[in-house]
């Protein structure tokens, strides 16, 4: 199995989008504030659906929000 991790730009994109709070983003994508915090901290990898929802909120392609690092 290939070793790697998922990096993300969720925190940066949140601030660039009117300084959106974690709670606001959570409400938009259907997860709790703590889950958004865990995603940003790299402690949780969201489901594909949630990842797409996040990308859609920021109006970015998925690869601009989440990156696979080996």
């Amino acid at each position: 199995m290939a070793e790697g991790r998922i990096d993300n730009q969720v925190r940066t994109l949140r601030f660039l989008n009117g300084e959106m709070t974690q709670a606001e983003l959570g409400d938009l994508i259907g997860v709790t504030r703590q889950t958004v915090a865990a995603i940003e901290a790299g402690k949780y990898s969201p489901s594909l659906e949630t990842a797409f929802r996040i990308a859609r909120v920021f109006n970015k392609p998925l690869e601009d929000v989440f990156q696979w690092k080996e």
Partner: protein
Amino acid sequence: MPYREKLAWLMLGAMLVSFTVYFAIAFSGSIEGLPNLRLLAVFAGAMLLQLVMLGLGWLIIRRTSGKDAGAKPDERDRAIANRAGHRAYYVMMTGLVFTGVYLPFTEAGWHIVHAALLTYVISEVVRYWVVLRSYRMGWHG
């Protein structure tokens, strides 16, 4: 701290306290030879203690959690709960096989009951430990 992590700490703590009290009395030797009803009363007392701790703790956590308390479990909460239940299931099954298949040939009466109770406690400890570790250390599913 997520609301469900707080609940997991509460349930783990309440269970450990109540069953520590119960097993301390049960294994102290002070109830040897007592009718079954006395040991059942000790068990009922321990369960009442657990219920009181859970009730009070839940009220405090709910008051201090604000909006988080009313939120439905999201995908991360469900995934962690599933993972914890999965791990605890195997512990429970191992204990029950040991208690139900092996112990009847070597022990009797309350020893078997206590072994079954201990199986339940250990499996629940494993469940809450997996929940807490998944929230604290992170888990990628």
